[in-house]
């Protein structure tokens, strides 16, 4: 080995190390920012080193493609709104899956060309193990590609309807089986251009059909799963190319993504299988009837209540994201703080539509993360809380999850808001949440409803609070 290949291999090693260290630093909000920067340096290093590999042709094309890809993604990533993060992650993840599939395609086409005796070249053929993993990686990558694009479209609101037809699961399984069958043919020496094309067409179609029937609100779980898929696909293609950095980075993401997906599904009290194939909410059974009526309150009364409270806990939910009310809420919390009220935020792990969704929004508004409490930490404290202010949250504070075994969310851990001395709920009307069920909290004796769009209602609270004498 001369020094250049060693240097390049060293760069790849360093990149893998930086990725792992970077992810490790993401385990605390204090170091997380540094973590992504480290990982970014690793990526830069690996990409630069790749230019100096021996036997690299088409350098001009490569540079052009990199510039266009980086430029477009950078530009879109810079200007997208924080509330659209889930779909952007889906989009970028799909691109990664597509790239893995493209690598597999190039390798397969090259392999098919070498099989042709008329064109047979001296280049080494792939070993059976490499070939199999290459095909597997291509399959997974292609599924992740088309699936992620559907997820993107759904979250973006371009595909509102759930696409369902009879025997859907059978059709999907047949699609997958056909793709796998052709994959086996490819591996066993029958690689040819039409077969390769059919393979990718089937894989892409399967990803599409698989994702279409899943409801938009389940998409974050699906995205996280496809994220793990893409990682695996990258690891497999890395094996084909003999690139250890790809194997390691891909596998780490594969494992991490699988774990994250499990954590998400668990926090929603569902299994991954149920998310992918289940018909959520159709659990049958008669729902408990809820007695009583919702009791409204107006903004000035609510403001007075909180102004003279000792402890207020604010519980944001998906409605906060819809209303983009995070800045107003933080303004309101600061005003309360200036009056000496102790304010905390309580966040349910699956509030909103992706894990940590609320944390990102509050962080955007400038809420320091040490004012934000986890479910497990805050739940025992609610009995000492004077006012719990629920803003656009519904399922995550629904006591039926504890009391009604027939409820689709039965068993999901919730924020015990109903234990607070008073509860004020901001929402637009009688709309249900993600699970589409009634919420007993809204009818409780100590609950008052403040109807209105999240941002507008909090704005009224701010105005009202300013006019309360201090």
């Amino acid at each position: 080995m001369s020094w250049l290949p060693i240097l390049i291999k060293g760069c790849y090693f360093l990149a893998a190390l930086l990725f792992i260290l970077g992810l490790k630093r993401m385990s605390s909000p204090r170091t997380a920012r540094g973590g992504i920067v480290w990982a970014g340096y690793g990526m830069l290093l690996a990409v630069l080193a790749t230019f100096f590999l021996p036997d690299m042709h088409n350098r001009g094309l490569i540079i052009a493609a990199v510039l266009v890809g980086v430029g477009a993604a950078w530009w879109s990533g810079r200007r997208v709104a924080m509330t659209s993060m889930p779909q952007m992650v889906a989009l970028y993840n799909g691109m990664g899956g597509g790239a893995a599939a493209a690598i597999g395609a190039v390798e397969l086409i090259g392999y098919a060309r070498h099989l042709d005796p008329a064109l047979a070249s001296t280049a080494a053929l792939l070993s059976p193990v490499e070939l199999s993993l290459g095909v597997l990686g291509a399959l997974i990558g292609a599924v992740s590609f088309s699936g992620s694009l559907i997820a993107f479209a759904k979250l973006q609101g371009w595909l509102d309807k759930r696409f369902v037809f009879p025997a859907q699961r059978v059709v999907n399984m047949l699609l997958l089986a056909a793709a796998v069958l052709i994959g086996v043919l490819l591996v066993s020496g029958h690689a040819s251009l039409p077969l390769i094309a059919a393979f990718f067409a089937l894989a892409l179609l399967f990803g599409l059909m698989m994702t279409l029937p899943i409801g938009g609100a389940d998409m974050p779980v699906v995205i996280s799963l496809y994220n793990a898929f893409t990682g695996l696909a990258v690891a497999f293609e890395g094996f084909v190319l003999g690139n250890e950095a790809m194997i390691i980075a891909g596998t780490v993401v594969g494992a991490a993504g699988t774990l994250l997906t499990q954590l998400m599904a668990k926090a929603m009290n569902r299994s991954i299988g149920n998310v992918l194939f289940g018909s959520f909410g159709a659990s049958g059974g008669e729902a408990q009837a809820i007695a009583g009526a919702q009791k409204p309150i107006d903004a000035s009364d609510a403001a007075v209540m909180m102004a003279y409270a000792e402890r207020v806990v604010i519980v944001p939910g998906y409605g906060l994201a819809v209303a983009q009310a995070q800045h107003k809420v933080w303004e309101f919390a600061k005003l309360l703080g200036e009056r000496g009220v102790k304010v905390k935020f309580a966040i349910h792990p699956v509030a909103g539509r992706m894990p940590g969704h609320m944390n990102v929004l509050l962080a955007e508004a400038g809420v320091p993360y040490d004012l934000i409490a986890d479910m497990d930490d805050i739940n025992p404290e609610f009995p000492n809380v004077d006012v719990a202010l629920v803003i656009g949250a519904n399922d995550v504070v629904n006591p039926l999850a504890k009391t009604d075994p027939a409820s689709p969310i039965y068993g999901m851990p919730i924020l015990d808001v109903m234990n607070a001395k008073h509860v004020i709920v901001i929402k637009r009307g009688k709309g249900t949440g993600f699970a589409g069920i009634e919420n007993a909290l809204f009818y409780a004796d100590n609950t008052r409803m403040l109807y209105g769009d999240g941002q507008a209602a909090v704005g009224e609270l701010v105005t009202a609070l300013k006019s309360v004498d201090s």
Partner: protein
Amino acid sequence: MIDGFLALYIFMLAAFTGYEIIARVPVILHTPLMSGSNFVHGIVLVGAMIALGQAQTPFEMAIGFVGVLLGAGNAAGGYVVTERMLEMFKSSKPQAGKGSK
């Protein structure tokens, strides 16, 4: 060319590493973590570059080009989005006395 067993070892160890590292991340960081790990598999860009670098027919080159484009998008997009999110996480400690604690 990597010996199959060595690859298996690397695969196993990398899986453990990924699992253990992520198992400690607090819920508050799950969204940036998801996009951060999404960024990390942007290393696929390197593979796509190699594939395009070895492509010989125009058809292979076209597919390789698309692969590099997509890989570059994955890497760059994942970075920007993650960095933007993490930038926002702040503690109240440095600006003490200002907040509402």
